[in-house]
């Protein structure tokens, strides 16, 4: 177990380093730099050049990267080229909304998808199975922003029940702000997860040990909860970790539509203003989070079904 953890940690460090280089190169490939983004029609080329020098953007790319990387190793994410403040401040200011959004979605997705998955799996190809499958597949086929626009048009603008954006609102005083964004994020994730749980349930139900247990007269309820669910949950938990990317993509769209000041919004702003340290810092935090989630998922799977091979 220890050597496994060590290998995982070493792999993670390499992954993070490669990712940082990739992000740096990709942002460098975008047209223009942060000094260009401050361009106004009254700034002279000399003043732009002066700004560029002040921001350190006239130094070689390799030097800028190693400087940034050295700072990160000491725990310093650097300074925003646009606001002039610490990148950490931007991370802190934007992480809350995204975290609340993601956790609220997960808190609903997980029990809902597991319940639906078992329901469908135990009634394989029955009417209920086919109905739920059709609905969840249809929902996952509709792009997030279409669902969002329709929900906003209906519940906010037509009926006036729910706020259409986070503009001028605060989650503390108005938790109802979460309803529509979470509803949009549910669409695809519920489908993906419940399909996995369904498949896992069906597999488990057909497995020899379940057939045997049934023959021995184990009550159905006990059979499902004690023997089928843990095995059925394995693909679900692994899928849940993979859902991370899907959810992040969804959060990006949802934050844009509902004007939510979260991680994705900060990232988009960072890219648009060529604020390289901010983009680097945000992706690094996201990558660490993704790695932790995947590690967590593997460990959970190991707990659920100890025979799962950890190193594949």
């Amino acid at each position, binding site marked *: 177990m220890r050597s496994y953890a060590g290998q995982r940690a070493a792999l993670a460090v390499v992954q993070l380093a490669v990712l940082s280089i990739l992000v740096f190169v990709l942002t460098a490939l975008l047209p223009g730099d942060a000094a260009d983004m401050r361009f106004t029609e009254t700034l002279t080329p000399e003043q732009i050049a*002066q700004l560029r020098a002040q921001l350190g953007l006239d130094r070689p790319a390799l030097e800028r990267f190693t400087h940034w990387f050295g700072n990160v190793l000491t725990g310093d994410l650097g300074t925003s080229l646009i606001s002039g403040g610490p990148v950490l401040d931007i991370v802190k200011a934007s992480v809350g909304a995204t975290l609340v959004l993601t956790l609220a979605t997960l808190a609903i997705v997980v029990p809902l998808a597991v319940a639906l998955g078992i329901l469908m799996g135990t009634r394989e190809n029955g009417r209920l199975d086919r109905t739920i499958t059709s609905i969840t597949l249809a929902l996952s086929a509709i792009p997030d922003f279409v669902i969002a626009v329709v929900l906003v048009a209906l519940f906010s603008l037509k009926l006036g029940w729910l706020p259409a954006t986070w503009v001028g609102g605060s989650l503390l005083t108005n938790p109802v702000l979460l309803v529509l964004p979470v509803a949009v994020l549910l669409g695809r994730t519920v489908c993906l997860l419940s399909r996995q749980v369904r498949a896992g349930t069906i597999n488990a139900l057909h497995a020899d040990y379940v057939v045997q247990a049934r023959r021995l007269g184990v009550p159905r309820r006990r059979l499902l909860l004690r023997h089928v669910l843990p095995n059925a949950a394995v693909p679900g938990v692994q899928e849940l970790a993979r859902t991370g990317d899907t959810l992040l993509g969804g959060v990006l769209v949802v934050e844009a539509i509902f004007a939510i000041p979260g991680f994705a919004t900060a990232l988009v702003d960072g890219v648009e203003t060529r604020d390289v340290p901010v983009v680097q810092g945000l992706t690094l935090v996201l990558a660490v989070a993704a790695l932790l989630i995947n590690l967590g998922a593997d460990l959970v799977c190991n707990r659920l079904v100890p025979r799962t091979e950890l190193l594949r």
Partner: protein
Amino acid sequence: MSEALNRRGFLGLAGGLGLAALTGCGSDGASNAAAQPKAGGRLRAVFAGGGAKEVLDPHVQSLFVDIARHKAMFEKLVELGPDLKPLPRLAEKWEPNAQASTWRFTLRDATFHDGQKLTSQDVLYSLARIADPAVPDRVAQSSLASLDLRRCKAIDPRTVELVLTAPNAEFPALLAGIGTHIVRDGFKDPTKPIGTGAFKFVSFEAGRSMVANRFDDYWDGAAKLEELQILSADAEARANALQGGQAEYANEMTATFARTAEAGKTVKIVAAKGATTQAFVMKVDQAPFDNPDVRMAFKLLADRQRLVDVVLAGRGVVGNDLFGKGFQYYPADLPQRERNLEEAKALLKKAGLLNKEVEIFTSDSTAGFVEAATLFAEQVNEAGVKLKVTTGSAQTYAKDLLTKGAIGSHRSGAMPIPQYITDRLLTKSPFNVTHWRQPAFDAAFASAQVLTDETARAAKYGELQKTLRDQGGIIAWGHPDFMVGVSAKVQGVEAAPPNTLDSARFDKVWLA
């Protein structure tokens, strides 16, 4: 000016379509406003955001949202009227010497939020702070470069004498430019803004919000609103927030939104007719536009009315190849240029351009750029010249246009005509996208600017603009309306071009 406006354009379109599918949503019973302004309440105004780019420092700004925030708390010596003519603000009057090189400004009896009276010293400190060469992003630096700070002085606490290195009869208008606010003497920490404006600072989060409260000792009469929030959001979120009742004022709205809003009862559109400018710009030193005949031919090929109808959905005014229609010094007596296909063909034939291909360089950095270029390409094609549309990066377009593309797309907000010429049409102008560099034009403009007699100055400017219209590289085809959406209960919002006194001004606004 507002770079954030167009991002996520696809989502914006989707949002717009979603809105367009709806009709008005249940009136809240607000009838025609009572004539009596009421005090109290909170107004939430939403502007295009700029994320971490948003600043509290009133001397560093370029976004509408920054301008609105600073305007709530700070004031300038001079402001601009609806025709972009200087109006007294913190300076109640001014007097130049005979050469327009030394100006005396008399200050109003105004009070800062910390209780201190406005003095000449505050003015001198503010101007020196703007001019600080170590901080190039203080935006008014180049426009106020002619100030000779060492010779500027306080005559008494309420009179200040400003001396210029070169005479300039337009100097008051320069003091009304972006980023010219008067701050307290010794102002260093932008996170603690203290101004003379109608609202006092409460809180600020870049990319999100600013909250300010009414300042009771405001010299121009305390505001009606108790609290003002200035928030940031993209176009589709602004539309949703306004229609969904989460905001009472939304800046810079589209024609699509206006059409939807006008069908309902909850939202009103306040439009400043033809307040901004859209144009195609030809580089007069690059083939084929180094030939004046080709420039004239392209001007004659633009079907301006159709461009306005299609690209602006009719919410605009046709242009006459000049910036600033309706503004002070605009030569309204020049005849409207009309489309003339035959004459254009003859000129193109003479220039040997028939059946050749020309590239127009555009981007979706501003709503309507690509659409206008595409439609114009059709209009040019009819004369036998192929105009090919190429699209560049939206975020760097303004800068790229300086060097790229023999012909491109151009927009401008509202500003005084002499300022437009100074920034864009002189040999040394930083944003001379038409490469119009004519020593004779520079000299004539300089000699006009020193004339203290306004009529004589206007006549000179008129001649210069006629030259530009006939020989220059600007095909100003239209002047889009500047539109603001307000909820039905909001009263006292004036239709005003951006960057003028009454635009994004909330001290006279009240809620019915």
